[in-house]
């Protein structure tokens, strides 16, 4: 299973199927939470995740599709678009340091 050190995360991508709804919501929330940190946050359809994405957050139901885009990629699945503990844990690790497991 891939993992990455928080200090190596420069681009975080929130992926969903169409990239017009749920991923937009989560990305906007994350942008606010990570404001002032050297991490850019983008949202994209799951089939168009950019190659330089260091960390990918994706809805549980789409995690396999996200992993299929590259086995070495760190993919963190979540279930709730608002208040998901997996997302909160990623934010905390990005802020405080440590490793993030995909």
């Amino acid at each position, binding site marked *: 299973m891939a993992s990455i050190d928080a200090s190596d995360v420069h681009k975080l991508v929130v992926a*969903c*199927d*169409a*990239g*017009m*709804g*749920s991923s*937009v*919501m*989560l990305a*906007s*929330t994350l942008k*606010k939470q990570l*404001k002032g940190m050297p991490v850019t946050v983008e949202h994209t*359809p799951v*089939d168009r995740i950019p190659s330089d994405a260091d960390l990918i957050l994706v*809805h549980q*139901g*789409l995690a396999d599709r996200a992993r299929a885009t590259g086995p070495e990629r760190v993919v963190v699945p979540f279930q*709730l*678009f*608002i*208040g998901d503990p997996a997302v909160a844990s990623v934010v905390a690790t990005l802020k405080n340091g440590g490793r993030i497991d995909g």
Partner: protein
Amino acid sequence: MADVALTELLSPGSIRVDAAAQDWETAVRQVGAILVESGAVTGGYVDLMLERERSVSTFLGEGVAIPHGTLAGRELVLRDALCFVRYPQGVDWHGDDVRVCIGIAAQGNGHVPILAQLAEVLMEPDRADALRRAASPEAVLAILTPEEEPVS
């Protein structure tokens, strides 16, 4: 700020504050019909909204779902638009209780500030409650108007 941009995307005519549906599928069809009527999408988009809902629910929490099409559905979008449908009696959404649907049709990112505002609202229980109780288009628009962001 941009009230004009807000009502261009979410026009008062695309806001229903007293709808009812016996299940999520009916609700998605109602939401889709409003997007079709307002000229935002072609009819085929509604089928893709249903498809998306079957694969991954668009339920967000706090009684709100945001039905929208799949990636293929983007090509059926004629104009970026949102609609708002309130279900005072609630709709069973794969086991979740949905009181508000915000339908999305988008090719670009013009709607992002409104969704960002929605995320803010839903993180505060009092404001989320106000959104679920909004009984007029004016009340809905007041809650979803993006707040002024300090220029960074």
